[in-house]
């Protein structure tokens, strides 16, 4: 088992829209790529060595690049939203969609181990949404996103928001084919999160500091959190927001909409 999160083999994945019957990924099982490896064999004594030189996550990477090509071809901007559970990914999505859905066409892919709850929250805003239930797996991968996006069939020139499974560790290794990765850290977490989970911050383009409405009650130091995050990734773009009060959200919208 994955000792970080206790996840197991992905054999019970469901991908569905609110009101749908579930599609099991394991039934579809796309053969993501054909083989590009050129293996060389050489012989010593009675042993044969096959040179493989292959990246272990290559299958995920290839399909991620295919997703990226799909987004490029349709002029779609896709973001991969990552954070610990409860940092406010769904709340930030709800607020962003409610405030901008008249300006832009949005689509949402929701990732959780179980339940349609987050998809139902997005569905309530009349935004097309597909829920991926990863079962025991602790992250989305490019194959799941590929199937969810095909199901959504987004219009050209739209924005696709992908909410990853709440987890600051495992999703960092899995490229989904997004155009930007956005990591959320909330003020109820430690301001040293960026150096405790450096991989996630190193691989992100944007860092949103959420729940700033709670700052008066906490000892979260925003500048310290930013300094830690910059140590890992000096190129990060920061937004300080409250997804519930709306404070600071306009700067984030400007960035998001300027991408199209």
């Amino acid at each position: 088992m994955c000792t970080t999160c206790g996840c197991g083999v992905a054999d019970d994945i469901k991908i569905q829209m609110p009101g749908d019957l579930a599609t099991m990924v394991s039934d579809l099982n796309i053969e993501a790529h054909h083989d590009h490896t050129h293996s060389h064999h050489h012989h010593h004594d009675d042993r044969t060595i096959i040179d493989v030189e292959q990246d272990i996550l290559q299958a995920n990477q290839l399909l991620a690049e295919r997703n990226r090509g799909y987004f490029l071809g349709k002029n779609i901007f896709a973001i991969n939203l990552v954070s610990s559970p409860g940092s406010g990914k769904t709340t930030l999505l709800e607020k962003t969609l409610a405030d901008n859905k008249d300006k832009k066409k949005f689509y949402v892919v929701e990732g959780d181990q179980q339940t349609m709850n987050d998809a139902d929250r997005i569905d309530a805003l009349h935004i097309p949404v597909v829920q991926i239930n990863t079962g025991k797996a602790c992250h989305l991968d490019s194959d799941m996103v590929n199937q969810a996006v095909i199901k959504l069939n987004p219009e050209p020139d739209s924005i696709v928001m992908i909410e990853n499974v709440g987890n600051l560790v495992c999703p960092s290794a899995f490229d989904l084919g997004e155009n930007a990765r956005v990591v959320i850290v909330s003020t109820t977490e430690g301001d040293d999160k960026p150096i405790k989970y450096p991989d996630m911050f190193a691989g992100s383009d944007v860092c949103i500091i959420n729940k700033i409405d709670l700052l008066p009650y906490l000892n979260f130091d925003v500048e310290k959190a930013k300094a830690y995050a910059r140590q890992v990734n000096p190129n990060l773009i920061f937004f300080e927001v409250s997804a519930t009060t709306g404070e600071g959200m306009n700067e984030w919208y400007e960035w998001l909409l300027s991408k199209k």
Partner: protein
Amino acid sequence: MHELSIAMGIVAIAEKEAKKANVAEIKAIDLEIGTLSGVEIESLNFAWPMAVANSVLEKAEKRIHLIKAKAKCMDCGFDYNIENLFDTCPKCGSYFKDIYQGKEMRVKSLEV
């Protein structure tokens, strides 16, 4: 990190290569894992028996070659060994760096 997925990925690669080479069993596998790849060797070792059960790797000796992470400072050009993603240039203190080695997660070769 995601060591069971990693182990399953390794098995998938080995199965494919074994099929191409027309062998039923692999004697040994050489892996290259960077020290900043995010792979915990202990977790990988722990996940290994479950992942390789009933596969061509079931009896294979697993040899892990650790690749030390290295970075080049983007401000002063200094080349240094790096242990954490947040390490700074020992010469000028800059955080801007190009980590050019140490993120590998690779199946190097198979012995059949």
